[in-house]
């Protein structure tokens, strides 16, 4: 603990007005600061804008009937980019269903999650190759997977140095109520696993406000399991980056797990199926608008003269182009062949399923002008 530093509940390095705070301290007194190059600051801004634009494309595509559903990250860009950029290449991420921004930071083709939301697949990609597990829909389940994976890292002797590997497990505020998440806390603590639990407290689990999950600030949850909890301003990309990086580095150096509560807000609906007007008032949303993660970063860049209008316009344009390319590719995604239903149930197949596939193929072929 930096002596004399006033511990604060919320770690913040950038005020909503875009003013830099030199150093911040979490509730246990750990100090956080950040010193990036100008390019890096601009890079973070670019990430935020591109990811918001990609996300908007998801929402638009759903409205146009091209996706079954879309889970928007609107408002949570800083939490995702800050944490996602804090990952080192060797690290492994376990997302929920909303971490499009994290995938982007991992360098994953933005089309990846669209298979799932379009309904052509279940969100299939190679976690080992992309260093990012697949989306997990069952709330909380991935936190145990992340913990087990991190136990494996420790078993492999891949902790204890700068080259050490670490795991980040994403979860929502609602997820903290699930037994699996508490069990992941127990396991990671007992086995001292190199895992960071990154909770985006976006204030809602669908319609339920955070008060339905806890009476005390969430970041306090982990101490009683034996590892530190930090609350960071999740709309502050710099603070999120700093806090996550510290936690990941602690993990990779063998100091065990950390729980991060990124205090943020879901600006949009839970998913495109949702109607938030039924459960929250406009003034609440407006209040959060004033803390917008992109506006604040833009104000910072402007005030520090790190970027001008040309830059902002260029980023805007780039985002538009990326979204356009994405849209085209989504529209071109082919429907899967019906017989794919039988694929990959087991690594080496099963005689029963082979028989079912054959029978179904014959059945399909029996129709004139068969679909296949």
């Amino acid at each position, binding site marked *: 603990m930096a002596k004399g530093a006033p511990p604060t509940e919320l770690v913040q390095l950038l005020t909503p007005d875009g003013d830099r705070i030199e150093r911040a301290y979490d509730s246990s007194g750990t100090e956080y600061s950040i010193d990036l190059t100008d390019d890096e600051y601009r890079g973070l801004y670019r990430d935020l804008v591109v990811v918001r634009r990609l996300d908007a494309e998801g929402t638009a595509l759903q409205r146009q009937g091209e996706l*079954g559903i879309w889970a928007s990250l609107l408002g949570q860009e800083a939490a995702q980019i800050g944490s996602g950029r804090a990952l080192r290449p060797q690290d492994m991420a376990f997302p929920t269903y909303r971490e499009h921004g994290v995938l982007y930071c991992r360098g994953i083709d933005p089309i990846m999650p669209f298979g799932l939301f379009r309904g052509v697949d279940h969100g299939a990609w190679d976690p080992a190759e992309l260093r990012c597990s697949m989306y997990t829909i069952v709330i909380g389940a991935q936190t145990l997977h992340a913990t087990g994976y991190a136990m494996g890292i420790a078993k492999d002797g891949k902790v204890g140095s700068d080259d050490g590997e670490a795991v980040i497990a994403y979860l929502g505020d609602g997820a903290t109520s699930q*037994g699996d998440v508490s069990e992941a806390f127990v396991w990671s603590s007992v086995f001292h696993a190199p895992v960071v639990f990154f909770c985006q407290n976006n204030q809602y*689990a*669908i319609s339920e406000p955070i008060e339905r999950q806890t009476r005390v600030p969430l970041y306090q949850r982990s101490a009683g399991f034996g590892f530190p909890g930090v609350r960071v301003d999740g709309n502050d990309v710099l603070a999120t980056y700093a806090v996550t990086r510290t936690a990941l580095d602690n993990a990779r150096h063998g100091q065990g797990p950390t729980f991060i509560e990124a205090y943020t807000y879901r600006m949009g609906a839970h998913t495109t199926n949702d109607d938030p007007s039924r459960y929250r008032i406009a003034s609440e949303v407006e209040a959060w608008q004033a803390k917008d993660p992109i506006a604040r970063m833009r104000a910072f860049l402007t005030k520090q003269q790190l970027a001008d209008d040309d830059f902002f316009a260029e980023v805007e344009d780039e985002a538009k182009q990326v979204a356009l390319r994405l849209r085209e590719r989504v529209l071109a995604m082919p*429907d899967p062949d019906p017989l794919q239903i039988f694929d990959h149930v087991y690594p080496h197949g099963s005689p*029963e399923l082979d028989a079912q596939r054959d029978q*179904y193929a014959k059945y399909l072929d029996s129709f004139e002008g068969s679909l296949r």
Partner: protein
Amino acid sequence: MTETMSLGKAINAGLRKALDRDPKVILMGEDIGKLGGVFRITDGLQKDFGEDRVIDTPLAESGIVGTAVGLAMRGYRPVCEIQFDGFVYPAYDQIVSQVAKIHFRSQGRVRLPIVIRIPFGGGIGAVEHHSESPEAYFAHTAGLKVVACATAGDAYWMIQQAIASDDPVIFFEPKRRYWDKGEVDLDSSLSEAYPLHASRVVRPGTDATVLAYGPMVRTALDAAAAAAEEGRSLEVIDLRSLSPLDLDPVYGSVRRTGRCVVVHEAPGNLGLGAEIAARVTEECFYSLEAPVLRVAGFDTPYPPARLEEAYLPDLDRVLDAVDRTFGW
């Protein structure tokens, strides 16, 4: 008086009646309050009955069911909503080891009049875990009763009967039929309504017997209509109760028709069709002209939405199976 309403609205109306009738009835679940549930099945109920009776719970299914057990021990009649079929598994231990067994364990001293509502089945274009048909997991469990409604008229009364029942009831709602409209008889009474644990012939016929429940009842009826055009008369029976099964009407039917096809969305392997086939064969051994055939989901995880049409039993697959019983 009868009223035309959607199946979803009928459940809403039935829940309202149950809340009205008995102050011990409470609803519990994720997002069932202000939002009225993701399918709006509990729409308006928290507003009218208060947060004390329509409870938005923390996000944990074992917690929902486990606290419902305690509330039932205290004299309440909890009605739990599981948001989607695929999210009931975290509660599986509480359901199988506690809800199902406590009455037996206590030698009848503790009753658990708990209803667990589960919107089930596919056909709505949803992502993974939102289209499961887990009914066999519960029907195999002694101590639970399991029902599935198929029409608005049944839904309205069955949910009330389930809540009034002293048994723990797993109540399956055919989510893709939530918007299907039907006639609801509002004048009947709980005691006069068609019994909860009885199957029902929903279309009489003479040539073959088709059994279905939940979302597949309409599919079976569509198939019967199509068959009729080709001169084949199918008797369709809506099973309604999956545990206990009410198969006497089925045996009667199969003894007349000699042919039987069971339809469900759940994977065929160890699905309800297996049990029904085994029993029908045992009871109607000398009447059967062909083995009982099953039209079911394939033995795979539920596929992505763009494949669900191929995965789900439909009119054609039902007719194909009926044909096969004739060609045996």
